């Protein structure tokens, strides 16, 4: 017996013979399961259209957003320009993608996860499930993972890779080792050994810039990083350095959180044709701001910081952000801030290739409180936003397009869900 109800046996007295492990529910061994959908967009397309199965499938426009494992055999990777992909694999099927459909599939996958784990932190195509202390309820983690994989396959037709470990980093790395359709479980105590020989770029928190810095120190594997002391890492990378010190030893203290309030909501896209026309840039910015703000309002938030970024035609990038005096959820106020940033950033006489906006610093909405000052105008704008959101929820985003965005979209195709952009705007 491991756990005896609420701890009080018949007659209400506490059974003294309980094994110490009976109390493990209060401090269980951590057990994290990472679920990652294999080649997500491409797999959904293959599920939807059986003729695509077994063939190299690419989803994306301009660059590869996702490609099937058949395509990966030709050396294709996400982020690769389509022109290059066509050269490498002429027989590949290239699709623009049906992003709302993908979201529906992801939702179903995460629903399954929530049935098997008490706490799930879901992203676009992956989820962390906290299985700590659930063994008595759900069975061993391996059994849970097997059942989950089977259920997802049955409900959606998608295959997922599952990694199980004592923390989120290890779970994700273990899952990556078993791709595709894998199930890898790493026993407790073997974390440091597991990460030791992996190349340094596999370590979360190490990007291009840091790889360069570490290469100069002849650090190639995660194990090599252990020669650096906590203090030197801290001196090199600040607070991140401390995290890296732990991570290269297979430790990661980040908890699994149901993300009720996201860190940020961003929307960005590449222009179909690079442009320096103010109307087009502002039009697209308005459209993106509207999309981001609508996503934010749907989950009942308002934000206080707006960031915008641009990329010139020669790939040079600039970004900046500003904090608003009071939190807002109005399209017009957010756009004003975003537009101000872009105007400040776009100083060169070069065309823009990419533009994006990001909302952050969220707080819960005002919960119906009517503002005392500036109520009239603001209230009108708020009800306008509510009406637009309502319309769009029912008939799709493109049922009503703001005049400003029309400038950007005069020769853009659109469907129910809005403009068909070159790179779709999705939030991870």
């Amino acid at each position, binding site marked *: 017996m491991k756990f005896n109800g609420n701890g009080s046996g018949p007659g209400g007295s506490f059974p003294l013979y309980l094994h110490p492990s009976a109390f493990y529910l209060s401090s269980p061994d951590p057990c994290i399961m990472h679920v990652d959908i294999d080649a997500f967009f491409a797999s959904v397309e293959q599920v939807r259209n059986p003729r695509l199965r077994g063939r190299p499938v690419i989803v994306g426009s301009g660059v590869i957003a996702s490609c099937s494992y058949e395509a990966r055999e030709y050396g294709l990777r996400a982020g690769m320009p389509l022109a290059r992909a066509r050269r490498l694999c002429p027989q590949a099927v290239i699709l623009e993608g049906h992003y709302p459909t993908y979201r529906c599939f992801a939702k179903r996958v995460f629903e399954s996860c929530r049935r098997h784990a008490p706490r799930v932190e879901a992203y676009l195509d992956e989820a962390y499930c906290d299985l700590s202390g659930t063994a008595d309820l759900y069975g061993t983690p391996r059994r849970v993972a097997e059942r989950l994989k089977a259920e997802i396959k049955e409900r959606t037709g998608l295959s997922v890779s599952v990694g199980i470990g004592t923390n989120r980093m290890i779970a994700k790395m273990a899952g990556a080792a078993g791709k595709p359709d894998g199930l890898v479980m790493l026993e407790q105590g073997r974390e440091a050994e597991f990460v030791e020989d992996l190349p340094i770029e596999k370590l979360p928190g190490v990007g291009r810039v840091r790889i360069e810095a570490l290469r100069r120190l002849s650090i190639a594997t995660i194990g090599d990083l252990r020669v650096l002391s906590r203090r030197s890492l801290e001196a090199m990378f600040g607070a991140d350095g401390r995290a890296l010190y732990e991570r290269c030893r297979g430790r990661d203290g980040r908890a699994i959180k149901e993300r009720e309030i996201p860190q940020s909501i961003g929307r960005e896209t590449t222009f179909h044709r690079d442009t320096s026309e103010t109307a087009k840039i502002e039009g697209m910015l308005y459209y993106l701001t509207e999309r981001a703000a609508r996503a934010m309002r749907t989950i009942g938030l308002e934000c206080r910081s707006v960031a915008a970024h641009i990329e010139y035609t020669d790939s040079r990038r600039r970004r900046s952000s500003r904090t608003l005096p*009071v939190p807002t959820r109005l399209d017009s106020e957010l756009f004003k801030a975003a537009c101000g940033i872009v105007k400040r950033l776009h100083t060169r006489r070069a065309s823009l290739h990419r533009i994006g906006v990001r909302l952050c610093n969220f707080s819960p909405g005002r919960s*119906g409180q*009517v503002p005392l000052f500036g109520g009239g105008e603001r209230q009108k704008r708020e009800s306008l936003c*509510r009406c637009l959101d309502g319309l769009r929820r029912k008939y799709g985003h493109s049922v009503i397009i703001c005049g400003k965005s029309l400038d950007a979209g005069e020769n853009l195709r659109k469907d129910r869900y809005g403009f068909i952009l070159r790179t779709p705007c999705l939030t991870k």
Partner: protein
Amino acid sequence: MKLVADRAALYHGLQRLGAVVDSSTQQPLYQHVKMEAKDNELRLSATDLEVGLTLAVRDVEIESEGTILVPYERITPLIGATPDSSISMSEEDGKVGIKTENSYFRILGEDPTDFVSVPQFPAEGVVEIDPDVLKYMVRRTAFATAAGKGRYALHGILCVLGKENAIELVAADGARLAHVQKKVSNPEGLEQEIIIPREGLEQMARLADAGSEAIRFATSERRLVAENDAARMVCQLVEGQFPNYREVIPTTSEISVQLPTKELLNAVRRAGYMTTKETHVVDFEFTDGSLTITAEAPDVGRAEVHMPVDYKGEGAGIAFNPENIEEMLAIVEREMVKMKFTDRRSPCVFKSGLDYTYVVSPVLRDEIGV
């Protein structure tokens, strides 16, 4: 510097300065209190650079003049714990010696030259206010100032000097506004609007704790200086634009009802226990002769409080954040408050006496969480 002071009076003065001694560790200099023996009086001063206060200590015999900075956190508890009735203090090259009948302490001080002192009282533009009136006004408004992030100007209280010796204090956050109007002595007929930070105004009201005379105040160089016979304070004024408060005080309303203050406070408070952070709303429902206050949170429960009221007419209702109502009712002394409103969407006015107006913006229940 050398002097003999009455322990109780000195301790009282030091305690009074506690509110303005800088508690942050950024500026060690301002964690000190300045003691200045001059012209046969001992003055204590402290500042956190937002508000500064200086006051005279009674019953001091000065043998030689001088100035010294003493760490506040050291000297105050020490003086407080000293059993003797009088204390003699002296300065010896930067150290303060404190001597009683059976003890001797030497505390390291600081050089007082860089210490920002409270400026002299301006000669012009002086307004005089009765200390009790000031306290009354501050008590009725200060609680309504905005806290935390947001519009900076709302962190202060607007003070409007108008025609015919009128003075108004206005405090507001995004959802409510408190307005009180009284008379002052304004011999120069000054008309101006200034925003005083809440701490500054509260310190000004506390000037009346010592001293008996009227409080005089004036502005100079974006600062407010106020004094009475015992103490003088200075505070930086808040820069910025206070929103137009006259616009949001409704002039007409369809429904007007007199409500008993205490009973209403009790009812709102009790109903408030059935609210959560997410659904922080109490609903007022008027029917012929009665008021029903309800609150409901899906994960907590439901509250329903009835009270008889003098209301006749069709049913009407409005919903508020209970805190906005409670805080106001808690400071109103009159037995009855008058509540005036038009519909569920427009601001509601509470009136107590002729001089106090409190406007509170309603909460739209059906829009919670949208």
